[in-house]
């Protein structure tokens, strides 16, 4: 069964304290790995898509990387406005709907 697992469930950082979020997946024949950000009371917002091992994408303080079994979302020198839930998702082997992990809730304190 296709599965997406994210860790940790929650993470608390001080402003400027860099860290990484993990997303592991078991789907074979990966057709893209997606990262989304979700703020309270809002729908998820697209951040990145990665397609092949070794690929990296960057946006401001965020950098996403991909291996054959997992992806990391690195957050460098985070700010309080980076506080949100970060979701990882992959397309299934069959069908079209993305399979989402349960997310990592990030809190960055001043």
């Amino acid at each position, binding site marked *: 069964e296709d599965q997406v697992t994210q860790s940790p469930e929650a993470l608390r950082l001080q402003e400027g304290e860099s860290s990484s979020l993990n997303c592991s997946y078991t789907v074979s024949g990966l057709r893209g790995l997606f990262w989304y950000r979700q703020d309270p009371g809002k729908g998820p917002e*697209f951040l990145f898509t990665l397609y092949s091992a070794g690929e990296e994408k960057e946006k401001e303080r965020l950098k996403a990387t991909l291996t054959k079994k997992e992806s990391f979302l690195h957050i460098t020198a985070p700010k309080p406005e980076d506080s949100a839930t970060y979701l990882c998702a992959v397309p299934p082997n069959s069908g079209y709907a993305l399979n989402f992990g349960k997310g990592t809730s990030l809190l960055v304190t001043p």
Partner: protein
Amino acid sequence: GAGVSQSPSNKVTEKGKDVELRCDPISGHTALYWYRQSLGQGLEFLIYFQGNSAPDKSGLPSDRFSAERTGGSVSTLTIQRTQQEDSAVYLCASSRQGSGANVLTFGAGSRLTVL
């Protein structure tokens, strides 16, 4: 429109009543998805529409749930005889193509509370 619009944003209903949730996707997006997000849980796929093709209903949790999409645009998710376990945020998303590899744009969701 500029984004995916969902209504109502909040709905409180009594157990056993029927509810309808509406989604207006981005103009030109042919694919439309419904997901459910319960407290502490990930996004749970419910149903997928692509153009005029038969919808993928494989995620609907029971026959109390149904959805339609009229004219390839607006979609309505209907929950009959609501139960307390139906309480959740119902999210709609649309994308340009039907492939799962495409980027989804989500609405803000409809929060359903069943008393």
